[in-house]
């Protein structure tokens, strides 16, 4: 009898432990909204370097009740993650950065974001480049899901020391004069590789993207039809021409090898949207003063540029908007520009001496403020379809496989058509 009773006790205890373990699996999340008076935690999700580290400290100092959590991840993964969490209904950050390459697919789910017009964002409409404001506006024009941070006006960054060693001019106007067109650019590259025995550009994909950004129509037209024969074909052909001429160091963009390439000087030029400056500076700080910025062949264009949005599931939407609004104020935007080079999308700032007169010592004191704002003002942006992101990745993969030698250049375009088509339907 005694034995049986103790058996009972043990069994009950076991079941209880099991039940507790199960309960433990269910709970645990700290999803409760923050208590009034307690600390408000605001999560910001983005990729690369948005130049937020010091601004975070500044904002937290001014708003002691707010704690900001920065979450930087891989570019594609952050957008996919946001999409998952929007559907799942929880887990999204309080402020989510969205790149222009993905904005169309998110603005068509405008009901999942806080309408910033309700929060009084309409007063900023006139401050933005017209197209930038429209990019994040829902189709019916009634919901503004995000406010623009930067635009990716294009220029060409180049290594003055490597140019000099190869007998090329180093002064930025003369360098710009070397390559009014992409064909001239390839000729200059052949000249460089012949003399230096080194590769000229980092990777074919980093030619493809800016050339595509210069075309009137990108992967998709406004009716969401895949249009590979227009802009993408032109950009693809020019890219393969450069690859075929032996200019590419074949370092997959944003890979560790690519980053090592900056340090080792494996390539002499790099297509430079404004936001790329920060990456170069962070990756190869020792190359300070060895870079300069010239015009990009083929005229103006845009590559990248982001928005800050507040997903509706944020428990602290008001605080999130307050932070977002603070971040897009001229003072902060100029701060970010100086730190990582991201060019603001509010044209009035281009005339602000803080930007207009800004010379970047890392880039041989190039007047990057003027250079990049000039490219941004004269811009007619492309429509970027809902599937723009995955389509771009698919075509980049084909370019990479040509560079690796697994796909023959002659078959590459057919392959790109097939992969892009697959991506558009995936």
């Amino acid at each position, binding site marked *: 009898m005694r034995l049986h009773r103790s058996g009972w006790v043990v069994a009950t205890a076991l079941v209880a432990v099991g039940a507790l373990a*199960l309960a433990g699996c269910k709970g645990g999340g700290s999803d409760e909204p923050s208590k009034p008076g307690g600390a408000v935690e605001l999560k910001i999700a983005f990729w690369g370097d948005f130049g937020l580290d010091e601004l975070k400290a500044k904002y937290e100092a001014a708003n002691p009740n707010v704690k900001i959590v920065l979450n930087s991840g891989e570019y594609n993964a952050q957008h996919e993650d946001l999409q998952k969490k929007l559907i799942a209904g929880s887990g999204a950050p309080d402020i989510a950065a969205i790149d222009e390459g993905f904005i169309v697919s998110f603005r068509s789910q405008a009901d999942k974001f806080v309408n910033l017009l309700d929060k009084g964002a309409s007063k900023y409409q006139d401050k933005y480049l017209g197209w930038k404001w429209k990019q994040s506006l829902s189709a019916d024009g009634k919901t503004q899901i995000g406010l623009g941070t930067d635009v990716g006006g294009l220029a060409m960054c180049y290594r003055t020391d490597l140019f000099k060693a190869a007998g090329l001019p180093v002064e930025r106007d003369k360098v710009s004069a070397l390559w009014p067109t992409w064909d001239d650019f390839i000729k200059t590259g052949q000249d460089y590789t012949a003399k230096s025995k080194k590769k000229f550009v980092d990777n074919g994909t980093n030619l493809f993207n800016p050339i595509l950004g210069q075309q009137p129509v990108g992967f998709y037209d406004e009716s969401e039809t895949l249009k590979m024969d227009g802009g993408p074909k032109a950009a693809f052909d020019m890219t393969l021409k450069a690859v075929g001429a032996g200019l590419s160091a074949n370092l997959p963009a944003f890979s*560790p090898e690519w980053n090592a390439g900056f340090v080792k000087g494996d390539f002499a030029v790099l297509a430079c949207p404004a936001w790329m400056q920060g990456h170069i500076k962070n990756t190869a700080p020792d190359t300070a003063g060895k870079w300069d910025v010239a015009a990009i062949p083929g005229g103006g264009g845009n590559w990248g540029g982001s928005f800050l949005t507040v997903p509706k599931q944020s428990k602290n939407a008001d605080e999130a908007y307050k932070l977002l609004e603070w971040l897009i104020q001229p003072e902060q935007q100029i701060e970010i520009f100086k730190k990582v080079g991201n060019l603001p999308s509010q044209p009035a700032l281009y005339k602000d001496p803080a930007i207009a007169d800004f010379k970047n010592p890392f880039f041989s004191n190039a007047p990057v403020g003027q250079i990049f704002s000039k490219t941004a003002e004269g811009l007619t942006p492309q429509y970027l379809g809902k599937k723009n992101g995955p389509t771009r990745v698919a075509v980049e*993969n084909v370019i990479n*496989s040509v560079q*690796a030698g697994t796909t023959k250049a002659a078959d590459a375009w057919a392959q790109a058509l097939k992969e892009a088509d697959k991506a558009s339907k995936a």
Partner: protein
Amino acid sequence: MRGLSHRLHRFDVKHMPYVLIAPFFILFAIFGLFPLIFNGVVALRTWRLDDPAQDGWAGLANFERLLTDEDFGNALYNTFGIFVLSTVPQLLLALCVAFLLNRRLRGQTWFRVSMLLPYITPLTASTLVFLVVFGRDTGVANWVLSVVGVDAIDWRAGKLQSWVAIATMVNWKWIGYNALLYLSAMQTIPRDIYEASALDGATAWKQLWRITVPMILPVVIFTVVLSTIGGLQLFTEPMLLDSNPASASGGSNGEWQTIAQLIYKVGWKNLNLGYAAAMSWALFLIIVVVAVVNTVLTNRLGGGKR
């Protein structure tokens, strides 16, 4: 009172065993069985995270699409290629290692423990070290090749070399683990059988194949089934080999994209959950078939009669 104690006793004898094993089965039902069944339901539906408006029963459409999907065929091919390159040498080498360890050696324990080191190393850590080995421009593997006069290999540029790179990582991790399993089975074989065969003039090689392997056959079958399951679900190594580990594309041209990677890509990057669920079920069925075939084959080769 007597009645209560009687009922308690009956409960204890008849039902207590079930109560005691219940926690496992409750957990299994929630985290094992439910996902499996729910996955089957999802496989029959259209479920897209990027377009929630598309929703509803799809019937077998997802499975039909699988049959003509080039990407799936490619992933299947890669998975089997890597599977053969990793499992076969892995188990054979493990057998040889176990056979050697089973002899009288100096520092026996040291050897046995060190065999297990790769197994207890975290997978991500060891894979990241292998990435340094298999780097294209500065990798150790290419340096060794250059010493013996072979041209540098771009390990990510083709099927065969990327498969070899991944198979090397898998083999390195699992040879010791399998060897220890074999070793423990070998130690149950009575010494006098070996002694008798030695008297009859059997060589070490003959002893291995005629005595050892048949006598440890159940363990061999167990390792074959386990490595079949593991090999066909290969995920971490191919993911990390990519220059952009978040892309899940297994190389710029899908050179080494495994099925597990493709499922991840379709589900969580293309956000097509219905189709990904269908792929998971297809993978499940493939594993069952391959595991059964492997078991039968091993049994035959080992001379078993089960």
